[in-house]
């Protein structure tokens, strides 16, 4: 690939051009940034994405509605259920379909568990990014517990294909209540342990406090959403601003940061795990027996029209724009991936940062390249 330098550039010929990625463990996938460095300072950066572009949106146009769900699993491969949910909700909204109560509760419980699993992965990987080896072991231990519960419910540890248009695939296993009770207890202790381990560590604080600051206005201008936006002091959560599914039935808080630096972006996520856990506890209590799938035909044919749905995925505002022409295949699916928009801020965040902080800043945005490239 060729790098074009334009004359209005802020770089000069003495700057050193350094390539980072795409095969670099701390880029969280296949992501490449070119850095122009003056001594220890980054003058300019240029991200390159697209190494994982599979044309998911185009592939959706050639699949039945029920088959598209499997493609959505593979977008954000760390929080699969949240992606599945977004697509199913878009189709249901177009069809004006009522979902059975129990199915909604199952969806919420699993999606919130997935949020915790996602943030646990972030926690571990972020520890590695700043140079701490231990957090990843603790983070993955907790994530493993959630995944083995997913395995018992959906049959798969990742690519679940569990949420269906009109409900979910099958009912929860018999021992689910007992298992979720133990799991929430374990997670509660686990989150505290993780928090204790890293959040007040002096070296961690030195590496993350006051690094990669972005203010709320800039963040919004770039289209940043999710925990990264809330760390900049803006309260925007789709679960609150446009409640979907049954989120208005729960009582939960939205952690908001103040500084907008790497530490706030990290700690907002830790706090979010606690809130998700409280949602899960409430949902398990409120859930009643009942049907799990609405009365839908095997081959879904939504009416002609278009719909844009937004959900709060662990990374932010996950939007699906669905255009239907009344046939059994979607006419056009556009995915508004939160990581895609969040990653645009990287150029802004890296300007005038130290080279050693570049990995810390990139890690704090928490990207998944499967979703960025689609």
């Amino acid at each position: 690939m060729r790098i074009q330098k334009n004359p209005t550039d802020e770089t000069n010929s003495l700057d050193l051009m350094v390539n980072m990625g795409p095969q670099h463990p701390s880029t969280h996938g296949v992501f490449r940034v070119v850095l122009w460095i003056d001594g220890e300072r980054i003058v300019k950066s240029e991200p390159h994405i697209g190494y994982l572009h599979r044309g998911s949106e185009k592939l959706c146009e050639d699949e039945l509605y029920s088959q598209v769900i499997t493609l959505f699993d593979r977008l954000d491969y760390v929080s699969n259920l949240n992606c599945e949910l977004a697509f199913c909700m878009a189709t249901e909204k177009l069809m004006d379909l009522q979902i059975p109560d129990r199915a909604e509760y199952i969806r919420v419980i699993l999606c919130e568990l997935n949020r915790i699993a996602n943030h646990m992965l972030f926690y571990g990987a972020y520890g590695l990014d700043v140079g701490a080896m231990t957090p990843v072991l603790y983070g993955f231990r907790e994530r493993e517990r959630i995944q083995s519960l997913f395995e018992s419910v959906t049959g798969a540890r990742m690519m679940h294909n569990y949420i269906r248009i009109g409900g979910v695939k099958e009912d929860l296993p018999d021992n689910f209540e007992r298992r979720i009770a133990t799991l929430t207890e374990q997670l509660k202790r686990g989150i505290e342990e993780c928090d204790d381990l890293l959040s007040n560590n002096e070296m961690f604080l030195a590496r993350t406090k006051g690094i990669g600051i972005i203010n709320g206005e800039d963040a919004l201008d770039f289209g940043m959403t999710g925990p990264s936006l809330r760390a900049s002091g803006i309260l925007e959560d789709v679960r609150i601003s446009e409640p979907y599914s049954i989120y208005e039935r729960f009582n939960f808080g939205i952690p908001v940061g103040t500084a907008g630096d790497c530490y706030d972006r990290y700690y907002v996520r830790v706090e979010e795990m606690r809130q998700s856990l409280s949602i899960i506890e409430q949902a398990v209590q409120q859930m009643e027996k009942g049907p799990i799938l609405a009365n839908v035909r095997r081959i879904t044919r939504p009416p002609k029209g278009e719909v844009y749905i937004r959900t709060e995925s662990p990374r932010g505002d996950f939007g699906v724009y669905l255009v239907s022409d009344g046939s059994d295949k979607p006419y056009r699916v556009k995915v508004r991936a939160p990581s895609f928009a969040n990653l645009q801020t990287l150029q802004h965040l890296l300007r005038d940062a130290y080279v050693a902080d570049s990995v810390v800043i990139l890690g704090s945005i928490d990207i998944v390249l499967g979703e960025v490239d689609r």
Partner: protein
Amino acid sequence: MAEKLQTPNNNPKRPRRPPEIPTASVKLDEREKALQSLLPQVLVDFEFETVLAVDEVIISIKPQDLPAICKVVKDDDDLNLGYLRCISVVDYIEYLEAVYHLFSLKKRHKLVIKVQLPTESPHLPSVVSIWRGADWFEREGHDLFGVVFDGHPNLVPLVLYEGFNGNPGLKSFPFHDYKEW
């Protein structure tokens, strides 16, 4: 394939009618109704057409008005549509359509702006100067659909590699008989 599976029409007196395709029902909530009534006052200088879809208010505008309208709806106190969620391009074969999904964090209402473009050499003014977040969305639209966003500072390939031939988002791009290597 679909034609082969259909049962033959044995009664020539009653020709088979094509199946009727239903249209999605529209249900606007209070916020969107208020927004709809506001629009003619705010966009008094522009030509636009209002359509409703499911729970959204859609306005179709002319391509050259796009940056001006975006600026107005962003800065207007009553509309306050400061957050650009998404830019999508849809290929309707006869024409292309660029769709801008806007949202207001304060008022919590949403607006969709649509622009129709010709299939041959589609050009559209860029909105990067209004929302910096439009940058990559426009580059992606340029990659996959060949829409040229005039005034974009850096319209180079984003998701495709440099030198890729064609616009894979278009319906005319071959789906199955395409070989990369």
